[in-house]
């Protein structure tokens, strides 16, 4: 048996596979029996073959360094995370509900702005936000859907309840790794699959294609969908290529496209211009069209906004969707669900203090050592302060930042993220993790079974981002009595 299994215990935390008493959770029983039965050499060999598979499959992500960009092999832990289908179906319903409400909100903001008029959400936090894009006013994309692809980050607290930590509505990434992680596990631990029925994840590109194809302005049997990437030096380039290939779509960069005088989008092919129906953009909206947004962008397509506003091309996610991807707006999602859907939220949000509110701010400034402070408008885990793990000096620095720009900061209680057994060096140890499922919203709504589990590989760390040394795990949603 590998070191660490014996006496593995989650103290005051929820562990995904092992109960507080040290026994296996029902759904994990079979897998644990097998994993714990493997001699140490065997575990090492399995991990080595996972590393090899990752290299062979060319799964990488790009990290920016001072010496240029390097492709790093994808960090992967071979012990899967296991969740029952029954539990997941509740989460999935909650995520669909959120996606519907968020899309209602975006559509409302760019049209009647009822929610602002009714005072449910303060107008200034929406209209003064850099994420609010005035050029999008008056647009109504098909089905009223703006954010077709959403990646929501989930965590569990001590009791095992899921909480949504944030909704990524701009260009959420990671889904290709979810698919590849399953592929790796199939290769290196095939015997684990014998006793389980695990919901498959490899149909994601197909589902994505269906969602995108519905948006086509032209009625055609096979609309022309393209994936718009900033290029090879983007950290998610691997994923852009993966999805393009999986959908049989072209992977294009800005200069491959142009907007003609008829306000339609074309790609330059060797057979001449070919009209594009749907652009799945993996480039920030600020860079999407130098005519409409940042004029200095060389990544974008001049006139793309014009073509979109004329209804000649669909863009996913629609420009302007980012207005709902903001940690201040996040605090209002439960209100949105009640307001637009007249429903009770099915999945929890984390209580959030808005530093723009005086009462909240006073509380935050008095309790910096207990809270997690986040800038409203950053992603990738940058600019976050985890109070209990930070020095006094850092607390003081954040106090200054908050007082200078309260609108830009929110705070939340430090959640004790759940853990799962993770194979670190030569022993199995608990490591914190989160989960990013992907929600596709078109005519219908669909949620990936599971998602991408990210693991903080450093002991005690709560930072799971792969750009900051995080790893990942295959995530199973298993059916059956348990």
């Amino acid at each position, binding site marked *: 048996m590998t070191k660490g299994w014996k006496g593995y215990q989650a103290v005051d935390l929820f562990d995904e596979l092992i109960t507080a008493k040290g026994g296996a959770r029902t759904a994990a029983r079979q897998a644990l029996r097998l994993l714990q039965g493997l001699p140490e050499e065997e575990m090492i060999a399995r991990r080595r073959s996972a590393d090899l598979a990752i290299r062979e499959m060319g799964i990488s992500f790009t990290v920016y360094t001072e010496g240029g960009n390097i492709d790093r092999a994808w960090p992967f832990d071979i012990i899967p995370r296991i969740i029952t289908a029954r539990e997941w179906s509740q989460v999935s319903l909650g995520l669909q509900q959120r996606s519907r409400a968020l899309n209602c909100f975006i559509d409302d903001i760019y049209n009647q702005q009822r929610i602002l008029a009714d005072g449910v959400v303060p107008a200034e936090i929406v209209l003064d936000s850099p994420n609010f894009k005035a050029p999008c006013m008056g647009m109504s994309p098909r089905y009223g859907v703006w954010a077709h692809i959403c990646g929501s980050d989930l965590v569990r607290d001590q009791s095992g309840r899921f909480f949504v930590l944030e909704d990524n509505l701009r260009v959420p990434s990671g889904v290709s790794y979810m698919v590849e992680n399953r592929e790796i596990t199939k290769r290196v631990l095939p015997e684990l699959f014998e006793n389980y029925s695990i919901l498959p994840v490899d149909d994601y590109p197909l589902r994505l294609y269906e969602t995108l194809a519905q948006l086509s302005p032209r009625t055609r049997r096979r609309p022309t969908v393209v994936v718009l990437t900033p290029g*090879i030096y983007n950290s998610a380039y691997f994923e852009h290529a993966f999805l393009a290939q999986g959908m049989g779509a072209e992977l294009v960069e800005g200069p491959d496209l142009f907007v*003609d005088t008829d306000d339609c989008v074309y790609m330059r092919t*060797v*057979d001449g211009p070919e009209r594009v129906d749907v652009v799945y953009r993996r480039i920030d909206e600020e860079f999407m069209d130098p005519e409409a947004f940042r004029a200095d962008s060389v990544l974008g397509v001049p006139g793309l906004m014009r073509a979109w506003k004329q209804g000649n091309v669909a863009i996913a996610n629609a420009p302007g969707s980012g207005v709902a991807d903001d940690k201040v707006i996040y605090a209002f999602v439960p209100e949105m669900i009640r307001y637009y859907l007249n429903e009770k939220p099915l999945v929890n949000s984390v209580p959030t203090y808005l530093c723009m509110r005086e009462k909240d701010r006073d509380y935050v400034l008095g309790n910096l050592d207990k809270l997690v402070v986040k800038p409203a408008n950053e992603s990738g885990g940058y600019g976050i302060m985890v109070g209990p793990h930070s020095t006094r000096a850092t607390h003081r620095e954040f106090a200054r930042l908050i007082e200078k720009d309260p609108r830009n900061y929110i705070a939340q209680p430090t959640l004790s993220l759940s853990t799962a057994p993770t194979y670190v060096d030569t022993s199995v140890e608990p490591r914190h993790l989160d989960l990013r499922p992907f929600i596709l919203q078109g005519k219908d709504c669909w949620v990936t079974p599971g998602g991408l589990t990210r693991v903080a590989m450093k002991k005690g760390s709560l930072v799971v981002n792969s750009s900051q040394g995080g790893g990942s795990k295959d995530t199973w949603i298993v059916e059956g009595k348990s």
Partner: protein
Amino acid sequence: MTMLSSVAERLYWMSRYLERAEDTARLVGAYNHLIMDIPRGSEPAWDIMIRILDAVRAFEDRYRVVSEQNVIRLLIADTTAPCSIPFAIASARENVRTTRDVLPEEAWELVNELHLYVGEAAKSSVGRRNRHPFLAEVIARCQMINGLLLSTLSRDHAYRFIKLGRLLECADMGTRVVDVGAGDILDRAGSHAAIEPLLWSVLLQALSASSAYRREVGPIVEANDVVNFVFTQGNFPRSVKFCVAGIREELTPLSNHEPALRVINRIRRRLKGLSVEEITREELHIFIDDFQLQLNALHQSIADTWFRIDAP
């Protein structure tokens, strides 16, 4: 099948760079052999290779003395000069990196490994001792990549642009080699007359044409025969005629091919009109100069028609 203009362009350049790397390796290797056969004092200058490869400026920017070491260092170990093997390989790799989805999976691995090999081995292969194995390895790996593409790619646009790039580069190299043989060395030849046949057979080797030439023409290597063979032996896959025919074949199924076809037809007519026995060295040189211009025009026409161009 849709093919983005930018992807077509990258495939075309990938292929040209791979061919260039292979041809350069062959040229250096062949010349290397020649040098050992020639008595001290009557070696032709090392700058022949730099002239064949159009690299005089690149050389002068870096070195003052035309010596064996400097020429070889430029061609096989310099990473910034466009005429060098490492530069060609690195450029090929950059082009494959962004076209992996239209190529067989192993293509990226092989090109990447070649790039790593050249990075590790080039500097220590400047000396005579390691030079030959290095060049042989580069040639073998290039051939492996070509073989892979030839045996696994569907005959669609991707294959077409790869083939266009390779044939154009190959035709270009063939004419360069002959030009130097004909125009440069031999005219001022008094001192080199004795080694002329040796030199021509080296040039044949540089084109991988020695054994085909022996079988077709015979063992005696003679200037006119070599020129004739390189230009007009339609069965030999590295002859200019063969390359031109292949280019024409691949251009035909492409849409909007008229401008490029006009150029290639013109090239074909020139080639037909070439009669080596009747022209002087000087005239041959002028012919080749013009021929090179036509190849450039062909490249330009391909780029204008099919590669990334601005909106109408």
